[in-house]
């Protein structure tokens, strides 16, 4: 611990939220996932959901959150989290039920699950940590890898001719009528982090208000999978991913949403 004089100092940021049982994790240097974890548990605490939330977690590097965050988790099969969360939510309709998935988990293996849940207008929140690679299996291309992005599959960068184009799940679901809220954030710089926190807050709020399905994508750095130095991960993401996946609210909450029934 660095030694500094704290006389007269007011603490404005703790190391980590109380809801993390440990500050140690095994993710790589420069990985973007842990910041997303922090935001998630901060928002759960802020909205007083700590003892009435269940996270349904897919398979990827982010899965490690289930070993340190002090909330309940159901680790489920790769790609199936939105279906599992549906079953959980229907039995616990007053709870905040959310998924944590990666781009590989949601856009590759689990594409049907998330789209069907969104079309049903299922009252769950899906969180996608998008680094454009299967980090956990070594950094291969996923169905969300942007054209030109370096992956283990193609260190020269994805080419559309050989591998096609990425699928933009948030954009697709934002157009679904049963969907209450969709946003895309990032954790590459402080204001992106702050916006992402707000998006998560909105998403959970919309779920609690019974407005329908919500989804927040968070762009996260994977310097390992991209084969870039850790300190260039943030910039690489901005240059390579943000143009295809711009940050912002793709579907803001409707002001009337709480009042109006969603049926046609």
């Amino acid at each position, binding site marked *: *611990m*660095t030694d500094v004089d704290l006389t007269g100092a*007011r603490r*404005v*940021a703790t190391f980590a*939220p109380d809801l993390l049982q440990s500050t140690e994790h095994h993710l790589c*240097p420069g990985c973007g996932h842990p910041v997303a974890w922090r935001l998630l548990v901060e928002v759960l605490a802020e909205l007083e959901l700590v003892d009435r939330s269940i996270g349904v977690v897919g398979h990827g590097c982010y899965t490690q959150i289930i070993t340190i965050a002090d909330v309940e988790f159901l680790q489920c099969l790769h790609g199936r989290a939105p279906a599992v969360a549906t079953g959980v939510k229907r039995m616990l309709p007053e709870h905040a039920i959310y998924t944590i998935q990666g781009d590989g988990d949601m856009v590759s293996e689990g594409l049907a699950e998330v789209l069907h849940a969104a079309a049903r207008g299922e009252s769950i929140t899906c969180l996608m940590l998008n680094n454009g690679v299967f980090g956990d299996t070594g950094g291969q291309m996923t169905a969300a890898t942007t054209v030109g992005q370096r992956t283990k599959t193609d260190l020269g960068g994805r080419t559309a001719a050989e591998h096609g184009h990425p699928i933009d799940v948030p954009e697709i679901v934002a157009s679904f009528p049963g969907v209450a809220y969709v946003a895309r954030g990032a954790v590459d710089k402080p204001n992106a982090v702050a916006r992402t926190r707000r998006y998560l807050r909105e998403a959970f709020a919309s779920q609690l208000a019974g407005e329908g399905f919500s989804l927040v994508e968070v762009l996260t750095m994977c310097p390992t999978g991209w084969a870039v130095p850790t*300190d260039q991960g*943030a910039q690489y993401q901005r240059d390579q991913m943000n143009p295809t996946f711009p940050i912002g609210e793709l579907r803001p909450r409707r002001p009337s949403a709480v009042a109006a029934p969603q049926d046609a």
Partner: protein
Amino acid sequence: MTARGTVVMALDRCKGCGLCVPVCRPGALEMTDERNAKGYVLPQLLDGCTGCRACAEVCPDFVFEVYRFDIGPAELTGSMMEVVE
């Protein structure tokens, strides 16, 4: 220069990624050649910290605790506060 803020760093868990350095607007952080027990190179705090929390916001390894001198000693607990965009 009077310090407006400072940070406490849990460098034992730092992984040397360097993400904290460019987000520190006053340039109060820089990487060094020092390594921790895990073998990672470490950042160090220079003068000029404003207590803006940017480093804490982006650090993936929960290294930073941030303090400000400019306001009263009321302690913030629990969640980190929002950075004003």
